[in-house]
């Protein structure tokens, strides 16, 4: 048996052994390894994609945040401005109102003072009339102590009255 002649016994065992090895490795060995490597590759790819997306989102969030901040600033400025305007307006209005109210009050006061003055004047006149009547009464009493004088006065008064009624 030379080196180049395959021995049938060894050939047989080789077929058997290699067949078993091939079956085991082709079914439970290499496909598992290759599948896991592919899975890992897919997982890494996905992770990278997710990371990139997250980064993009982060950048977006930053931009968004800046935008929101800018908007807020604008809003603030606007609100402040309008608040100032409102304040000024309110103050102006209040001043206006106060002025008007003041004017009105002044007017009323003047009117009241006028009324008061008139009533006071009327009062004074009445007082003066009463006083003059009293005085006149006293004067009369003293003057009309005697009959003659009384008659004289009465006639004069009657004359006067007649005269004034004419």
């Amino acid at each position, binding site marked *: *048996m030379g*080196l*180049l*002649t*395959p*021995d*049938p*016994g*060894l*050939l*047989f*065992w*080789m*077929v058997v*052994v*290699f067949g*078993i*090895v*091939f079956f*085991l*490795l*082709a079914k*439970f*060995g*290499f*496909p*598992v*390894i*290759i599948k*896991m*490597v592919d*899975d*890992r590759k897919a*997982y890494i790819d996905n992770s990278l994609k997710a990371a990139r997306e997250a980064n993009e989102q982060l950048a977006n969030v930053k931009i968004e945040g800046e935008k929101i901040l800018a908007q807020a600033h604008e809003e603030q400025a606007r609100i402040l401005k309008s608040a100032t305007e409102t304040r000024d307006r309110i103050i102006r209005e209040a001043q206006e109102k106060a002025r008007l109210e003041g004017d009105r009050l002044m007017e009323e006061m003047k009117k009241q003072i006028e009324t008061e003055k008139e009533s006071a004047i009327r009062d004074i006149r009445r007082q003066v009339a009463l006083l003059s009547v009293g005085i006149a009464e006293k004067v009369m009493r003293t003057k009309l102590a005697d009959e003659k004088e009384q008659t004289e006065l009465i006639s004069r008064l009657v004359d006067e009255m007649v005269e004034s009624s004419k």
Partner: protein
Amino acid sequence: MKKVRYIWTLVLLMVFTSGFASAETSNEGGEVDVNELVFGHINDAYSWHILSIGDTHITIPLPVIVKSSTGWHVFSSEKLEDGEYEGLYIAEGGTYDGKIVERNSSGEEVRPWDMSITKNVVGLIINSTILVWIVLGCARWYKKHPVENGAPRGGVGMVESMVLMIYNDVIKEGIGPGYERYAPYLLTAFFFILVNNLMGLIPIFPGGANVTGNIAITLVLALLTFFFTNAFATKEYWKDIFWPDVPVWLKAPIPMMPVIEFFGLFTKPFALMIRLFANIMAGHAAILSLLSIIFITVKIGPLLNGTMTFVSVAFGIFMTALELLVAFIQAYVFTMLSAVFIGLSKVKEKEEN
């Protein structure tokens, strides 16, 4: 300091080896038969000889399974050491040198059906067990570790990177589209050859069998490649063989090119078979021959023997290192060429210009 110690160890080892060698040869009192030593290792054997100290041989007897003209015989190979057993004996010289034979009625030596578990079969089984253990061990690692935990390290990582190297660089590149069907066979072939090659380089028991350096082993591998190449070949591939794109006078009336192409079908796997077998066999033979120099030169004298021992050990180390490389390269080449042959059989119809 460390270096000096290494050198001393080496020198002492060599002196010891040469002393041991001369002792052994003087014990036996005869010449060392290098031819028998080398071919005794390269050829298959019915028992596994591990080592001889003086006249004591440490050998693992292996089962002999033979169907001769007198029926089935199953017995230990120890029985054959003393000559004939149940009408069977190991032939010396002749066509069936070293194999179990029996005599037929006319007194000629004939071989019975020999299914013995020989040294190579045991080596094959041990190596295959190791291979299956390694690959299935890796596959089990993946079951225990979810994909999110990342890539494996250490041994599993090494096997994985080798699987990927073959899968991506050899199978995918060599075959092209539709490579998935062939991947399990090519990967199995690669790791089978690699493990058997490497185990063959280990000089003591579990290793050391010249498995891939045996033509029966490479024949089966080459036949499988032949099968996978031609079983799923495209129509275009067969057309290229039987009616190739050459001037008509080359293919009719004498079908010169078709004949050449047809032979090409067989020469490709044949080359695979011979390449692997010859490389590994030659590697084993070279290492053994180099180490035999030590035993041959004993007779010439201690000075030359010592020098030659040094040279031989140095070359032995070199050859073993080279064989480590060859073990990988041959496995790689076998897989790559198989992939290329399969890729050629998947040729698509050429577009008309």
